[in-house]
């Protein structure tokens, strides 16, 4: 199945940036502080370098096959059966990601703003929007994201710089936090695993030419990691690392601390709007990706018939963890498992592809 839509570079960059930014609104920044202490921002810097390496990895996989996406190349390299099986696995990977984010975003909304609303109602709202987004397709998501991006960016800037009087630069020390192994290796890997690079390789046919894949994805990573690095720095400068580890929702907690006298405070409502929008984009995009990948694997001409059934599956899966801490732990495991589709399997595909191509060249010569 081929993507029939295309959009510009700016839309693509913003779509991928906003989607990969979703984690900064959830407990992820806290997890990095727990791992790296006051040097959590350095883990994000290490993560950025690893993410750019991932972008390069996918770029060299996609480069020889203009007009094909990662699933086409997987099937071409591994054969129809094994390739399709791997693509089905990719589809399920996106399903688990979507389920995890649906649950955590819903829980986060309950913790912060809607404590008396049943979680099923919040999750249903997210799923309805995700279904609509996935039905309407990538172009709609990309263009609506591009439209709202300045407001999201403005909101984040207001929130982060509203905390300027509370910044304590000494909180960033000792500079190497929990030690180089935790900061650069464990923290770096944790920060580096983002599904959006793989997702970009899935929807590469919508990018008006495959040659821009590297540019789009690397820019999206630079932007989203830029936000992560800045947020981690502001988070630690505002709340010292020891207390920062306790926070369920760091970004929300920061927004509650903005206080410019009696007349400018309680601005967390801005945050909740931004947060809900990013959550909707993230869940819509992963639902779309899972439907798109599975439709490709099952040789269906259109992904849309799969959207509703997959939404029901994602919705049900999202309620499997019994509580918020379990959901977070599960999300962490799934994120770490992301190293398989994001790095290990692509490397395998690349190596096999190079062998296969060398073999065909030798045969031809």
């Amino acid at each position, binding site marked *: 199945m081929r993507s029939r839509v295309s959009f510009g570079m700016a839309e693509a960059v913003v779509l991928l940036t906003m989607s990969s930014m979703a984690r900064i609104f959830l407990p992820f920044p806290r997890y990095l502080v727990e791992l790296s202490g006051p040097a959590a921002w350095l883990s994000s810097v290490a993560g950025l370098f690893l993410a750019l390496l991932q972008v390069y990895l996918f770029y060299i996989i996609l480069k020889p096959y203009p007009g094909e996406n990662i699933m086409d190349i997987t099937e071409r390299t591994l054969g129809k059966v094994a390739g399709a099986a791997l693509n089905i696995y990719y589809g399920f990977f996106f399903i688990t990601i979507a389920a995890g984010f649906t649950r955590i975003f819903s829980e986060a909304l309950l913790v912060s703003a809607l404590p008396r609303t049943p979680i099923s109602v919040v999750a249903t*709202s997210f799923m309805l929007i995700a279904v609509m987004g996935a039905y309407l397709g990538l172009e709609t998501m990309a263009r609506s994201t591009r439209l709202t991006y300045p407001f999201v960016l403005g909101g984040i800037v207001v929130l982060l710089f509203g905390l300027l009087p509370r910044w304590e630069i*000494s909180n960033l*020390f*000792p500079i*190497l936090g929990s030690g180089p192994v935790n900061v650069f290796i464990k923290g770096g890997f944790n920060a580096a695993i983002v599904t959006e690079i793989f997702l970009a390789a899935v929807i590469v046919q919508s990018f008006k030419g495959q040659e821009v894949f590297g540019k789009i994805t690397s820019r999206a990573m630079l932007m989203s990691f830029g936000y992560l690095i800045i947020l981690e720095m502001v988070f630690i400068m505002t709340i010292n690392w020891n207390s920062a580890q306790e926070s369920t929702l760091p970004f929300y907690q920061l927004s509650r601390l903005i206080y410019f006298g009696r007349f400018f405070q309680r601005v967390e409502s801005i945050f909740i709007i931004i947060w809900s929008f990013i959550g909707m984009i993230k869940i819509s995009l992963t639902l779309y990706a899972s439907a798109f990948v599975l439709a490709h694997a099952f040789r269906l001409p259109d992904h849309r018939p799969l959207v509703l059934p997959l939404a029901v599956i994602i919705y049900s899966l999202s309620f499997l963890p019994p509580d918020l801490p379990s959901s977070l732990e599960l999300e962490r495991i799934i994120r770490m498992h992301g190293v398989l589709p994001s790095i290990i399997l692509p490397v395998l595909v690349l190596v096999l592809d190079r062998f296969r191509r060398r073999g065909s060249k030798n045969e031809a010569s």
Partner: protein
Amino acid sequence: MRLLKIIAPLILVLLMAGCWGKRETDEIAYVLVMGFDKGPGHFSVISFQIANPKAIAGLSGGGGGKGVGGGDEPLFIENIVAKLPIGAFNLLNVERSREISLLHTTAFIFSEEVARQGVAHYLNPLGRYRETRGTAFVFVCRGKASEFMKKNQPVLEVTPSKQYAMLALTNKIHGLTQVTQFTDFYQGSKSVDVNPTAPLVGISKKEELSKSEIPPHNKLGDYLAGDMPSVEKDPQFIGTAVFRKDRMVGELTGDETRYFNMIIGKLNQSFLIIDDPKKKGQSVGMTLRQARKPEVKVNLAGERPEIELRIYQEPEIAGVTSGINYESPEMKKVLEKALANIIRKRCESLITRTQEEFRSDIFGFGRKAKRKFITLEKWKKYNWDEAFPQARVDIIVHVKIRRTGLMLNTRPTQ
């Protein structure tokens, strides 16, 4: 599909309106201040000062000080005995018709007794609960918090909430107290680099002092809250409660708090009276102003930490009782030197007190010290809590009188 496009947004509008969480304003009563006192056994007495909307509506409408209901008080206090603050808050609902909310709680007042036993078990639920805010102010009350809340009747404000918020502004004028928000206090209680402090509050008890209680004139504001002589039984916000982690270990007077604010770089302005350096028995009034933030350098190379503290002040002459022309360049230097000497001595004495009596780094020197370490493990191993009391602190005070008020050349009285 078209039908779905129409129906889905409509459903979303209904679902996203937050109907489950709705609370009408006329169904809620807002707690403005919470107080914490020691209760029987392991229990605490939690006091809630609640705004009475009926009466406040009358006040703000210019109704002559009485609420709609005639003799209604604009605020009332409920005391609940419970183990934890949120538990007490929940129990409070059984006594009132409206749902009680902490969304507008602007101050937490701990009694000295509670503070000396440790406040960690109060801080945790207050930090966790979604309605309480990190920007609320924290106070320590000399005496019972519930008594203070009852007697604190702000004359100039409708509610104590505004009174507490305004304290942050008035402190910029005198510097004799502290402004501590919950988030800073909570972080300080868990930090290894700095210990928390909180402003002291109390109700004035004395109209005049005995001879031994009268502080020297050059220690303006050398009182703890409640000790400053006053005819009316007024609330007083002066002095600082010093903590080691979550436990109160001592008190600083208003005068000491001035120097504490100076060392941490939060003294915007403060009035000070010093002995006239040239004429015994006479005084010079000065308005202190911070020229720039203090500089702190920490050297950990030796056996004990060495701290160099540089303080920059640009005072203004406020009054000279002797009539000496301190505005002249030569005499200005004499005054600058005398003032620098006084500031240095007072700061030294304050730091020594925190090292020997409280064993608590309330100045945040630890924040500078930890910059010398590359990893957390090494910093924790250094054990700043033990090292700080041993530290040698050198204080260098830079005083430059920039302005002399509305007089440029004082002439002696003929």
